[in-house]
């Protein structure tokens, strides 16, 4: 590949790539993110390439494997353009039919089309799927058009034009101003104004400056950052180069956790491609600006997502946070001024520079601008990655995009912001997605987790789950977080097992306050949120557990009993055969009974019973 030694050569290459792509009559897009790989997209992709070759269509049909589209529960997805015909849950056996019918003749195969679970109607075209139509997919939408390991795909989509604009016609000062005016806030959770951070770093004194991309995403259920880094690594690299130009950095790092192998590889490939084209390295695009990026793999500690712990880990030290009385923009990596931004924040930078701060600021609410990606999971019909404009209400996300509750149950809460966030009840569902609004309601935006819970979830149990997670993931350095979170877990466990007392609720609140004010880092300061928010909105459930020793959702094992309804039981023996603890007795002639002493409330019997005769009391 010839190096791009000037901005004109980048534009020439863009034209050349567009010309090559225009040759193809049909484009077959297959998602190849980690989730789709788990669903078996690779055999489908191989079968598709083979079939296209076998049919002699390789001159007119372009087969592209992209990153994650977000609709992971329907994967593997195959989309055929023009027309945007979408097929879901495709297997390698379906491929010959797709090539013969859809690609050759333009006929839609009904049985592979998507059925909307809300209206029960079949949807043929991608842009008519309700899950997509109600989103604003500025970042995620690009994933669908780009093969992550092909820099030309990114260039064809206008990639690196923001970098060219910044290097060619803007001063570093003007770039910082543009980001400030756009109102972009950090997408990692804190919501700190990105432009302000860049300016502080630019103004700080130091021998060198660094930019870091935080891809150490670790909240249970979240995979926004992974999908962006896997699917469109060049957008993050371009963002980082622009950021480095603005603050005056010469080195950058992408800190990505080792549990994201595809993201590690794709980021590395993208960096090498950019280096080969002289978009990274010395004298970028012939403008005299030098900058390079290195991928560093994190060992998988949740706390290393905290900025100071991440930098300690980068330096080769133990990944523990340090006091942040002096911010990392002044004294960060190696003691030098450092800008650390989340993957999604970096990915927003190129489009702000390309389309202007006003374009970005025109989206969203008064206080929060742009769009935000969420990982929508839990008890809703549609799950996956979604991107919505700031200001969209939780209700729209859960009922319109998510399609409402599953299995005819009733939704009772949504947990936003991961382990550090909180649970919001239905009465708060009209809250807009906005950094301040969610914070004021006792939760937080976080990096974008959104777990929807229905009446089969016990909120005491939910608090217990997150506390156990945080206790494991606390680094253990400071007293309030190490001992305090452990004690919170102890108390909540007592309550869930029927040993709770009313004064323990006051103790929970007092201790939570202490942890939130006295902990060393943000992990500790936000650790009590799951307890505080459930206590605030679901206090009656705590009281039910304490006073009546009852778990209404039937989750807390110590408070429930399994009984067999003899009027429903047909004495088939399935429960006896499946019970791992031999706790069920009975025969054809005598009625069935569960021995409470032996039963562990695992409910394997209830799942096995076709008569639904095993009830939770």
């Amino acid at each position, binding site marked *: 590949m010839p190096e791009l030694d000037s901005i004109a050569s980048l534009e020439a290459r863009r034209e050349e790539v567009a010309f090559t792509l225009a040759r193809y009559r049909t484009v077959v897009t297959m998602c190849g993110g980690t989730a789709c790989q788990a669903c078996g997209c690779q055999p489908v992709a191989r079968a598709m390439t083979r079939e296209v070759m076998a049919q002699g269509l390789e001159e007119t049909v372009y087969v592209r494997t992209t990153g994650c589209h977000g609709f992971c529960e329907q994967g593997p997805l195959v989309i055929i353009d023009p027309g945007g015909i979408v097929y879901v849950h495709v297997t390698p056996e379906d491929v010959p039919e797709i090539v013969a019918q859809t690609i050759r003749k333009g006929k839609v195969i009904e049985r592979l089309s998507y059925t909307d679970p809300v209206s029960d109607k079949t949807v043929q075209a991608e842009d008519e799927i309700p899950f997509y139509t109600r989103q604003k997919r500025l970042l995620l939408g690009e994933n669908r058009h780009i093969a992550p390991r092909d820099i030309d795909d990114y260039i064809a989509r206008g990639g690196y034009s923001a970098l060219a604009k910044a290097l060619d016609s803007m001063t570093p000062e003007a770039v910082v101003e543009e980001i400030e005016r756009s109102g972009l806030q950090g997408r990692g959770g804190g919501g700190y104004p990105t432009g302000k951070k860049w300016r502080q770093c630019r103004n700080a004194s130091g021998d060198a400056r660094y930019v870091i991309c935080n891809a150490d995403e670790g909240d249970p259920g979240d995979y926004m950052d992974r999908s962006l880094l896997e699917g469109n690594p060049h957008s993050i690299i371009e963002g980082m180069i622009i950021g480095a130009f603005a603050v005056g950095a010469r080195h950058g790092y992408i800190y990505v956790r080792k549990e994201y192998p595809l993201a590690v590889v794709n980021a590395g490939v993208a960096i090498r491609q950019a280096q080969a084209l002289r978009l990274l390295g010395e004298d970028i695009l012939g403008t005299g600006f030098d900058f390079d990026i290195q991928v560093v793999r994190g060992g998988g500690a949740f706390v290393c997502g905290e900025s100071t712990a991440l930098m300690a880990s980068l330096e080769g030290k133990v990944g523990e946070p340090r006091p942040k*009385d002096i911010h990392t923009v002044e004294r960060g990596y190696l003691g030098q001024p450092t800008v650390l931004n989340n993957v999604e924040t970096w990915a927003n930078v190129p489009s702000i520079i390309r389309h202007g701060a006003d374009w970005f600021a025109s989206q969203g609410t008064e206080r929060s601008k742009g769009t935000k990606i969420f990982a929508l999971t839990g008890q809703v019909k549609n799950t996956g990655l979604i991107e919505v404009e700031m200001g969209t209400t939780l209700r729209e996300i859960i009922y319109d995009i998510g399609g409402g509750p599953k299995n005819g149950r009733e939704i009772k809460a949504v947990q936003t912001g991961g382990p550090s966030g909180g649970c919001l009840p239905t009465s708060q569902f009209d809250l807009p997605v906005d950094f301040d609004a969610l914070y004021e309601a006792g939760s937080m935006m976080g990096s974008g987790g959104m777990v929807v819970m229905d009446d089969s979830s016990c909120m005491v149990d939910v608090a217990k789950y997150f506390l156990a997670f945080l206790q494991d993931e606390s680094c*253990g350095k400071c007293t*309030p977080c190490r001992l305090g979170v452990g004690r919170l877990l*102890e108390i909540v466990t007592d309550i869930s097992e029927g040993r709770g007392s009313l004064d323990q609720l006051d103790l929970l609140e007092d201790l939570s306050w202490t942890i939130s004010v006295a902990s*060393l880092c943000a992990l500790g300061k936000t650790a009590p949120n799951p307890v505080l928010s459930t206590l605030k909105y679901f206090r009656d459930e705590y009281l039910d557990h304490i006073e009546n020793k009852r778990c209404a959702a039937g989750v807390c094992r110590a408070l429930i009993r399994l009984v067999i309804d003899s009027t429903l039981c047909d004495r088939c023996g399935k429960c006896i055969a499946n019970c791992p603890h031999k706790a069920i007795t009975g025969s054809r002639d005598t009625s069935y009974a569960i021995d409470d002493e032996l039963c562990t409330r695992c409910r394997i019997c209830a799942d096995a019973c076709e008569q639904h005769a095993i009830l939770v009391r």
Partner: protein
Amino acid sequence: MPEPITIFVDDIAIETTEGANVLDAALRAGICIPNLCYLPEVTPTGACRVCIVEVERHGRTKMTAACTLEAREGMIVRAHSEPVLRARRNIVELLLAEAPESPVLQALAERLSVTDVRYSRRDRDCILCGRCVAACAEVAKQGSLGMIGRGANRHKGLPFYKEEYCTQCNECHDRCPLELSPSGRRGDHCGVCGSELSMNDAIPDICEDCVLS
């Protein structure tokens, strides 16, 4: 030379230098901020959080550990306000529940009027304050002792748990707060902070909290 500046701790003006350690400056000025993991001869870590204080900056108040706070001109620190005392008492209560038999923790609790421990008591011989680790690295210059594990599994230890990495210099032992014991003498006044509590036998006229620092 760092600039001489003035900071205010509990409304008392203290002359110190730019970037100086606030806990150290307060202790020198006779304002005894209770502390536990702090050692003047090593880099402070801010792990135990006992020396928690409120600091006012840009019109906002936040809590932080005094030992890791760097002094700035005109800084306003409150070491004994109501929220600070509440947080500090709760922290000491958490520590005391880990090692209820420790004389030093008992003395600290008494000084802060922590009378009730609301948690089940454990009988640990270590509260993971990290003094030994810091002493091994910075006083003995060995760097053998370290913290191992995360969260509830965190514990101190030698590399691969092998005794051969220890030179037995005892610098760690001498600084372990659970090994120190304050005096039973009451009614004496500490020469540094004026506290009547927790006098120490080993060094007369200096109280438990001050000798710890």
